[in-house]
């Protein structure tokens, strides 16, 4: 930390002294799309060295997306998983391994490793940037598979917009988004209400597949531009969701229905100050406070003590980043910060015991353009963890522009994810369903030994002896791509990827209780890989029809399983004869939850009058492994797969009067449902939205 500060001072002094005539090609902002996530500083999209996708506000609006998972689910190579809320799978890596940022700061409050994307409203999102491949060299923990950065509207002028939507299942979504500007001050606000009565995919069922919910999001932005070089900014966000919860348990022939409520609160406070010393040197200080509160309360009939599950997470961070534009050929980004994190939960031991972790980190990134066509970037980050081993995360990437139209990119980097509190401290026993227990790795041994001395352990499994301090999960990722651009009307890009993950943390059975209940804990047991390629192409026809498509091929495996298969230790059973035989690599479908093929095709029609628009989007996914049914621990049988599906979503909008627009759409036009594997897919979902842009309405009345 101290080393970093003194280094930073030297750099600032050096660059300030060497002030010359500014040559600002890298800060150049033309009409071309600019992204900030890939390099942690502004870059033209066409200049980045790593696979980056940008989703614009217009696309989000015209797709009729309300929550983050809806728009992400239509992107190439991203799949929305449906356990513990909606997570995103990227390059075949689980939701645990993608860092989700809001204006550059991480969203917290993961359950089972998954950050529920449906907690995030998209009504005021200006753009979403998706960076694939390990990015821990800039972002630290969790950025193992990639980073998704949600950038909200920043006030630019006076604007007031209202949207009201009604859809199937009594879905109501209402939002108000406004900005004002006064002198050096700008302020913006966004409020959103989102609710639904839920639905049931199983007829005559006592409980709904998705229970009624109610959500509120409030966001604010306040900025003060002291002068051309100095700016204060404050971003605030508060979100709350309430889910009605009812669980029916059949017990001795009588059905006990318990009613409950799940409440989640998110709070994010992000003050920042940025200062530009000169055209070459810029620094910014950021603070970040985030709180996540979750409570699940359940009242069981005829039972005095109900169920009350609480989880509280607090995240505090201070950070500095300094961007140094040394010359046209050299640019340096350097930064460091300090994180303090607390978690308390009665899932661990008691709410009064706060578990803490602190992290100090520094990062450094050097961009070098030896010749005009070639960009080389080297990055390195060091995270010193209190609770786990420290981690170095390097990354190298390059882009070579062959000519105006063709370019190639390549990158290699390391990513990591620190063990989370749940994996260390969880202490959970489910009495209702089979009396299984899950213990965090740091508490498992003591808990099992205590049960053993009470005579409640039937058998200790080999995994019990392997319990040890958890190491961070790490990955090495390689990406290589070719891009072709035809002006602003067309682009085609191919990216090949491979991610090797080590020290993967999985649950394993460490013991059995005398009542047959299993005891699980977390171990660094596995190594896996994901590899494949994706192709994306987009073309603009006659200036108003945008056609784009994407495809991802994916292959994954647990390396230990491959070794076992090669050693002849994995078996299958002929269902006709009942006889077992050896399984071969070709029988093994890889990690569960991964589709070999995923594709999308999208049409957006926007005539130049902007009077109306229409869109149609098709998302396809081949079958994916769900659960092992035959007991050999892997996905190999046809009935262990979820069915192939394709969803078709359409939408259209018409401007009735200037500033007043009606939009209607149908998600899942052909009413596809799969109650087991896609509980979050309700089937056909028509909706209608009214939007009013009060600035345009006012202008219109002025012209009258």
């Amino acid at each position, binding site marked *: 930390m101290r080393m970093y500060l003194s280094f930073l001072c030297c750099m600032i002094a050096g660059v300030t002294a060497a002030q010359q005539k500014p040559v600002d090609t890298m800060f150049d902002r033309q009409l071309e799309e600019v992204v900030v996530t890939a390099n942690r500083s502004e870059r033209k999209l066409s200049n980045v060295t790593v696979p980056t996708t940008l989703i614009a506000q217009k696309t989000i609006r015209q797709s009729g997306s309300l929550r983050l998972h809806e728009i992400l689910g239509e992107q190439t190579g991203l799949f929305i998983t449906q356990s513990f809320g909606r997570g995103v799978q990227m390059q075949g890596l689980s939701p645990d391994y993608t860092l989700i940022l809001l204006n550059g700061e991480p969203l917290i409050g993961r359950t089972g490793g998954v950050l529920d994307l449906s907690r995030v409203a998209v009504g005021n999102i200006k753009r979403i940037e998706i960076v694939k491949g390990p990015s821990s060299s800039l972002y630290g923990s969790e950025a193992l598979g990639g980073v998704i950065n949600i950038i909200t509207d920043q006030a630019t002028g006076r604007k007031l917009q209202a949207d009201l939507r009604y859809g199937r299942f009594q879905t109501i979504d209402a939002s108000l988004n406004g900005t004002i500007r006064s002198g050096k001050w700008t302020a913006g606000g966004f409020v959103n209400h989102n609710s639904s009565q839920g639905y049931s995919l199983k007829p005559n069922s006592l409980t709904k597949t998705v229970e009624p919910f109610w959500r509120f999001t409030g966001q604010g932005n306040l900025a003060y531009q002291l002068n051309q070089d100095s700016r204060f900014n404050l971003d605030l966000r508060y979100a709350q969701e309430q889910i009605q919860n009812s669980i029916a348990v059949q017990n001795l022939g009588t059905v006990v229905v318990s009613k409950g409520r799940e409440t989640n609160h998110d709070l994010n406070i992000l003050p920042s100050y940025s200062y530009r010393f000169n055209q070459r040197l810029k620094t910014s200080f950021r603070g970040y406070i985030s709180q996540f509160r979750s409570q699940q309360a359940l009242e069981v009939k005829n039972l005095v003590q109900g169920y009350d599950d609480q989880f509280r997470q607090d995240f505090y961070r201070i950070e500095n980043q300094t961007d140094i534009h040394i010359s046209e050929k050299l640019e340096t980004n350097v930064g460091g910060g300090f994180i303090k994190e607390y978690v308390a939960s009665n899932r661990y031991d008691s709410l009064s015991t706060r578990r803490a972790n602190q992290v100090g980190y520094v990062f450094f990134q050097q961009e070098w353009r030896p010749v005009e066509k070639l960009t080389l970037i080297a990055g390195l980050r060091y995270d010193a963890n209190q609770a786990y081993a420290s981690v170095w995360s390097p990354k190298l990437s390059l882009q070579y522009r062959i000519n105006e139209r063709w370019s190639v990119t390549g990158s290699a980097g390391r990513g990591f994810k620190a063990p989370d509190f749940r994996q260390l401290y969880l202490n959970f026993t489910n009495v209702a369903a089979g009396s299984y227990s899950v213990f965090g790795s740091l508490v498992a041994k003591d808990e099992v030994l205590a049960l053993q001395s009470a005579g409640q352990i039937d058998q200790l499994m080999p995994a019990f002896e392997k319990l040890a301090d958890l190491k961070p999960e790490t990955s090495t990722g390689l990406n290589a791509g070719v891009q072709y651009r035809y002006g602003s009307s067309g682009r085609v890009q191919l990216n090949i990827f491979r991610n090797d993950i080590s020290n993967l943390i999985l649950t394993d059975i460490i013991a059995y209780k005398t009542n047959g209940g299993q005891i699980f804990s977390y171990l660094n047991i596995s190594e896996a890989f994901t590899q494949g390629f994706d192709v994306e192409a987009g073309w603009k026809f006659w200036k108003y029809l945008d056609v784009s498509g994407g495809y991802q091929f994916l292959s994954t495996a647990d390396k230990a399983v491959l070794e076992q298969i090669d050693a002849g230790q994995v078996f299958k059973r002929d269902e006709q004869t009942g006889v*077992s035989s050896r*399984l071969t690599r070709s029988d093994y479908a890889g990690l569960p939850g991964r589709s070999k093929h995923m594709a999308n095709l999208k049409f957006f029609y926007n005539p130049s009058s902007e009077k109306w628009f229409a869109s149609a989007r098709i998302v396809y996914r081949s079958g994916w492994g769900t659960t092992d049914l*035959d007991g*050999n621990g892997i996905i190999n049988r046809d009935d262990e797969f979820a069915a192939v599906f394709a969803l078709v979503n359409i939408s259209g909008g018409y401007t009735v009067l200037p500033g007043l627009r009606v939009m209607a759409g149908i998600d899942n036009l052909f009413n596809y449902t799969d109650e*087991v594997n896609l509980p979050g897919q309700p089937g056909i979902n028509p909706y209608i939205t009214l939007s009013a842009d009060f600035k345009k309405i006012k202008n219109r009345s002025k012209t009258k």
Partner: protein
Amino acid sequence: MKMKTMAAAILGIALFGMYACSKDDNSGNTNQPIQTVTASNIVADTILGIAPSGQPYGSGKFTFFSLERNAVVPSSDSATNKWDIGFRGTTIITNSGNSGLGQGGAFVYVGLFDDLLTIPTDSVFRVDNAPSSYAIPTGSNRGWYVYNAPVNLVTPVPGRVLVIRTATGKYAKIEILNYYRGGVTPAATASDDEKLRNQRFYTFRYRFQPDGTKTF
């Protein structure tokens, strides 16, 4: 084609009759090479009804089986050396420990039936200590079977061989082939009633070594 013939053969055996087993001609002759025998439709306390609690119930009695004689042994002989293994639902007991008076025992070998030619010398035979533990562990994916709750079906785990020490201290190996009537697992889409009515019928193949050695 070969598969189909085999399936047809097994089906034929199954249809031949309840409790009937295909016997090889030389079972008593130790000079002849031992043969693999298939026992079909061994009833294992089939379900008599559904209790008001929703739980299916049977009579609660074990079906005893002699590997040496390839026959079901009457319950009246339960306190003898005449049986080697017993079936009740998914529980398989051995004539050992507190289950019987014999010198039995067992362990679950992970591998293929045909590959197990000699019982490894470091093998440990377990004995029954009912109801808390059995030589052949009970429970889904702990011994010989896996239970799939979503479809309510019990199927044998691939690559599991039950290595048995018989009541008289001889050795046998068993591969459980099926748990349903006629050796046919009901379709996942079949009704729960059909699944319950047709379960607890064991079909298994085994090799018994009458000379007391551990080779098959």
